[in-house]
């Protein structure tokens, strides 16, 4: 069945890592794929995609008008595609005022939802955005949080509703009612073979026993960091030194203060417990 398989996550949860794994898996080259040339996994909120498929400048439209177009754009992409599509997405699964899902249930084949311990997400988010950790914690608790707001200038991405970290997780896992495969960042780190094999199977990329370990090796943190050191990474924020920083789960133990940990648990305890983070 054609349709979009969303590579969905709250920001800073391992989405790029999964995309680079899938790139290496699909290419099956003898060398690691260039980190700056991932296989076709465009982000759903790219302004250029919406402008091209709609045939208008979204920069001349209101946010409400643009959001009305977005599900139609995904349906259009699916109608034109000869094979299933993979798209990265940070939007939460939300509904338009008329009840239509922003990301179109009709265009959706399923979603791999990458989840990462919010205790680690806040550290990575603070680094990426150039803020302190307390600001990142506040943002993770904000049900109104949005990416690429850009009211006074034009960002190259459309505004994306994130909700809070818990809201984001539950929107995809419980509310979307599309087939969702949950992929924990911690499992990608600690048991990559089983975690990535599960994701590849769900994506319908059921390759042989050798191809998956090779793709894991070619998208290992060491390899990604090596390439970033050598030639830079175009998705790095201008505010951070490196995009691929540590690639480890559990870094929060050495970074967060007790009161910060308590705040995050107070905000997200029930969802953290459900996914094994408490």
């Amino acid at each position, binding site marked *: 069945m054609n349709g979009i398989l969303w590579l969905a996550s709250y920001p800073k949860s391992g989405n790029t890592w999964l995309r680079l794994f899938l790139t290496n898996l699909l290419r099956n080259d003898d060398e690691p794929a260039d980190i700056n040339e991932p296989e076709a996994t465009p982000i759903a909120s790219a302004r250029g995609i919406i402008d091209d498929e709609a045939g208008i400048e979204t920069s001349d439209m209101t946010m409400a008008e643009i959001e009305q177009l977005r599900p139609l754009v995904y349906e259009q992409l699916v109608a034109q595609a000869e094979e299933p599509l993979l798209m990265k997405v940070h939007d939460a699964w939300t509904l338009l005022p008329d009840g239509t899902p922003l990301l179109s249930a009709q265009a959706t084949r399923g979603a791999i939802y990458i989840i990462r311990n919010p205790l680690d997400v806040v550290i990575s988010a603070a680094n990426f955005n150039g803020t302190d950790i307390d600001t990142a914690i506040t943002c993770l608790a904000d049900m109104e949080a949005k990416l690429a707001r850009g009211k006074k200038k034009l960002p*190259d991405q459309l505004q994306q509703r994130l909700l809070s970290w818990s809201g984001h997780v539950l929107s995809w896992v419980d509310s979307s009612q599309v087939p969702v495969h949950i992929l924990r960042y911690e499992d990608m780190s600690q048991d990559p073979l089983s975690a990535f094999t599960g994701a590849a199977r769900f994506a319908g990329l059921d390759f042989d026993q050798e191809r998956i370990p090779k793709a894991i090796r070619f998208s290992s943190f060491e390899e990604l960091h090596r390439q970033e050191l050598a030639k830079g990474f175009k998705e790095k924020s201008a505010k951070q030194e490196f995009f691929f920083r540590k690639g480890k789960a559990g870094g929060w133990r050495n970074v967060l203060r007790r009161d910060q940990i308590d705040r995050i648990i107070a905000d997200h305890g029930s969802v953290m417990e459900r996914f094994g983070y408490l």
Partner: protein
Amino acid sequence: MIIPLNAQSATVSKLYSAWGLAIDSSIELPLLQLGDGVAADVTIRFGTVPETLDNARHQGVCFQAFPGRFLLKLENIARYLVSDGCEILIDPVPDAESDAIRLFLLGSAIGALLHQRSILPLHASAIRVNEGVVAFAGNSGVGKSTLAASFMKNGCQVVADDICAVSVASGVPLVCSGSPNLKLWHDALHQLGEDPQSLPRVRDSVEKYRLPLAHGFAEEVLPLRKLYVLRSINQDRFELEHLTGVDKLNALVKNTYRFNFLKGLGGKKEHFSHCAAVGRHVDVCRVSRGKNGFRIEELMALLEEDFNR
């Protein structure tokens, strides 16, 4: 600035001049220069526009296209039917924002009309430099208009904003000037020392403003000399790369305004040969700038040094 689409404006037409065309329009277009003469290349009228095109060869979410016919459908605004490069019919939705009707008329609808007339619309803003044109292309938000506006502040004249119409009929790529306005965002206006509050918005509901150009506009036909394709990178430096061969051709194809329309309108081959013709006469450079902070004066100095060489 809201100019109503009243009954009078629906019956009395005026002649305007833009993109090398004499445009006879029943909808007032205060954003265009008035034209003279009697013969019009294009007429713009109110009328009944169908919901769909029969036999559309390609359709997007808001458009349908067939050779010689193009339909643009914008919910709550209007439907536009663009025919044979010489007529645009507008069917407004009752109570639609009149500025919005004009905005998309002078955007996608004109883009389709230029494609139908085999004029190459580059997605670029452009300035006059000596007896030629230097154009700035790139994705929306990359700073095309801001750069053109900054050169205007330094005494240059602007010839196009967003749509740069290039005609290759004579073999030499010629730019015909567009509308004497620049569309700019709040932050860009601040950077230019303009007060956004004193300027009209492009539409009431969008925080993007219109800067009228007056003497800062050149209404002329001039050869295109240089095309800079702007992009932003996450490193704090500038890069200038002269493109050749396939890269140059791809840059021209990719920076064609609403390239997708050609899938339905036809003429992709002709478009490709126009891009190749432009490529033979025009120097095309990719310009990278840091994402954080435009550092516009440094960028202008770099470009000036290049195009004055």
